[in-house]
């Protein structure tokens, strides 16, 4: 690799040719602040926070010092870089003051107060007057149309991170910059409501928003009210990926497993039963593996594509409406869980389904859309009443005055808290496929697997392929996460270029661990740490420590089939655990 000699703040360093000033400084352990920059996603040099002074060689002499945006400016041989001169700091401060001049500075009541990137930069750069340039202010109506989120453009700083993630990572692009100059605003085509577009509710825009312009619709008050209502039995379930990230909201390093403390916290908030969506995941595998084998044996539609991710489901309905028959008819684990609680469990405890409130804690914002879908009400009432994000749960814990870090590790309640290693890996890309293979292969061969680990489908790559010989049959599978990747694979399936039998698709890159409802990490962390890999490791570690690692060996699952559903794919199972889809299309 060609190396280039540079000086940063008077010290000598070497960095690979082609590196940006920002990256070279980072390699030298000098952190330059950024705001709009997201590595590989939003590299547009727009916000000017990463400004530094550089002087470059002109022949033998050094040229004059110039101000450049370090995130997009490449280093050159002999370059002198100054990251902390008074001029640089003054420039950053002025930029922040100008951003503040058109920012709705209601910080005290802002959902991002305390983890706002703009707030931190203002503090770091010594911004001492909020209203130095108090000029004209643009005023925007809030877009509250979508089931899952709110856009408050009065707080938007036009960094365009949300635009970039929506169009590049997810391949959707329903939001963008409209108008120009002072009137510039991030919104949908023809300023339409987000709910009227092909937005899939994935919430990746919220995850990357540095300020309080984008946030989920909060259901925490309703849940506190339900808990306080003595006539209601309030049951909570937590998705696999939540335990891998909730700790981040309480100061734990990324990649800390807080399953035990989470269960303890939920109990102390006051939920009547603390259950685990992992049970729902095991149930999903029973149905989905059965459905797959049935499709293979009886000439059903292939490839079968997983249906756990509501963002992916809505994407398929909008962008590939002709492929909705390929979707597994299985409800997602969250919905299967809710449906089981309001039928089987309601009967078991002798409570009417309408007196049970099912709360789901999810790493996901699309789940807020999913709970309101048609055909998700097995007992005649909604399978799931409230779906909250990991962030909302953190808020509930704080509001309840629970010292999370001091909690003991506790277990989930029986029987719907019993799960397997197969259930917990659902939260990472490849996990659903691996869990399904563990059950499908053993069902097909009738023999016990030598190794339950299918390493080919693990890892955070956006597209993975593998092929397995099972009982004399070759099963070709693909595992995809991130919707731009899904589009690439589905185009190949449509054209006949790819001939998979089984595809797992998760809407968010890396799967649920990187979902739009997980605790937000600032740009400077996202740009340097592989968050999704660290969180996924938590789930695979839990799996490898579990005594039971196959869904069909879960004793609680066996019991629920014995006592209630009969066989996987039975008429009763179909009525309660399966659903249907809508062909939405685009621009209708």
């Amino acid at each position, binding site marked *: 690799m060609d190396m280039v000699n540079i000086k940063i703040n008077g010290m000598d360093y070497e960095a690979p040719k082609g590196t940006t000033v920002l990256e070279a400084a980072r390699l030298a352990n000098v952190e330059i602040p950024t705001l709009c920059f997201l590595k590989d996603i939003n590299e547009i040099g727009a916000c000017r926070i990463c400004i530094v002074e550089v002087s470059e060689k002109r022949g033998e002499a050094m040229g004059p010092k110039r101000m450049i945006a370090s995130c997009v400016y490449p280093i050159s041989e002999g370059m002198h870089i100054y990251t902390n001169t008074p001029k640089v700091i003054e420039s950053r401060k002025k930029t922040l003051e100008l951003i503040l001049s058109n920012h709705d500075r209601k910080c005290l009541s802002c959902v991002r107060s305390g983890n706002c990137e703009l707030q931190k930069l203002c503090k770091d750069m010594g911004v001492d007057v909020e209203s130095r340039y108090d000029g004209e202010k643009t005023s925007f*109506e809030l*877009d509250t*149309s979508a089931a899952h989120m709110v856009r408050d453009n009065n707080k938007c700083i036009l960094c365009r991170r949300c635009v970039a993630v929506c*169009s590049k990572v997810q391949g*959707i*692009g*329903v*939001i*963008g*910059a*409209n*108008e*120009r100059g002072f009137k510039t605003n991030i919104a*949908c*085509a*023809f*300023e*339409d*409501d987000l709910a*009227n*577009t092909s937005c899939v509710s994935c919430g990746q825009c919220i995850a990357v928003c540095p300020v309080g312009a984008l946030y989920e619709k909060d259901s925490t008050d309703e849940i506190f009210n339900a808990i306080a209502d003595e006539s209601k039995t309030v049951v909570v379930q937590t998705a696999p990926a939540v335990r891998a990230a909730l700790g981040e909201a309480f100061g734990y390093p990324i990649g800390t497993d807080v399953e035990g403390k989470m269960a303890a916290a939920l109990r102390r908030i006051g939920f009547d039963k603390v259950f685990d969506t992992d049970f729902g995941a095991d149930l999903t595998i029973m149905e989905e593996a059965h459905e797959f084998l049935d499709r293979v044996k009886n000439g059903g539609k292939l490839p079968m594509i997983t249906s756990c991710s509501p963002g992916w489901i809505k994407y398929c309905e909008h962008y590939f409406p002709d492929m909705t028959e390929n979707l597994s008819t299985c409800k997602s684990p969250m919905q299967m869980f809710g449906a089981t609680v309001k039928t089987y469990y309601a009967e078991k405890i002798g409570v009417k389904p309408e007196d049970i409130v099912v709360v789901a804690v999810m790493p996901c914002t699309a789940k807020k859309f999913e709970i309101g879908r048609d055909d998700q009400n097995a007992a005649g009432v909604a399978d799931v009443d409230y779906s909250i994000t990991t962030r909302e749960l953190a808020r509930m814990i704080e509001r309840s005055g629970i010292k999370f870090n001091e909690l003991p590790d506790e277990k989930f309640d029986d029987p719907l808290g019993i799960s397997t290693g197969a259930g917990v890996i659902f939260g990472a890309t490849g996990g659903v496929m691996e869990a399904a293979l563990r059950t499908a292969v053993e069902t097909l061969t009738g023999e016990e697997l030598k190794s339950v680990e299918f390493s080919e489908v693990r890892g955070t790559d956006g597209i993975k392929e593998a092929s397995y010989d099972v009982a004399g049959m070759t099963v070709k599978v693909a595992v995809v996460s991130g919707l731009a990747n899904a589009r690439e694979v589905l185009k190949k399936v449509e054209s006949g270029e790819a001939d998979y039998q089984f595809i797992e698709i998760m809407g968010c890159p890396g799967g649920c661990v990187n979902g739009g409802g997980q605790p937000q990490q600032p740009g400077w962390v996202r740009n340097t740490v592989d968050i999704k890999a660290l969180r996924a490791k938590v789930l695979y570690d839990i799996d490898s420590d579990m005594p039971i690692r196959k869904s069909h060996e879960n004793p609680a699952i066996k019991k629920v089939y014995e006592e209630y559903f009969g066989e996987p794919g039975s008429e009763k199972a179909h009525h309660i655990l399966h659903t249907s889809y809508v062909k939405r299309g*685009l*621009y209708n």
Partner: protein
Amino acid sequence: MAAKTCSIPFTGTAEQEAKLKEVIASHKGDKGALMPVLQQAQEIYGYLPIEVQTIIATEMDIPLEKIYGVVTFYSQFSLNPKGKYTISVCLGTACYVKGSGDIFDELSAKLGISGGETTPDGKFSLVDCRCIGACGLAPVLTVNDDVYGRLTVDDLDGILEKYQD
């Protein structure tokens, strides 16, 4: 919020659509084809309503929002058809200090449209312009080729009256 679409019914013909599709096909595979396609689409239809932008989005496999973002960024593109009479109010410095801002606002209120829009009956479009070289007559507006100067808001009803055919 409701979608900000044009209140005048779209009257595009099959011929216009075929022509637009031909234009798009001729740019197939070109990088940066959106600008020339939009320019030619505006030549074909006179403006770029949601119906036209949706055809472009579908045919070019570009999100509708991206197209709308480009259309609203460049002042050369219009979301509304031009009315029979285009009222252009000069907001250049001389006219502005003589109160053309009030003239513009009053017209906007009288016609019930904002700048860049056209009345639902297709009669009037309202736009602002910069200096037209008649500063001695400030404040000035034009209706197609007719020039009106030394205006007050009280003159506006009389002017609009002349264009009732």
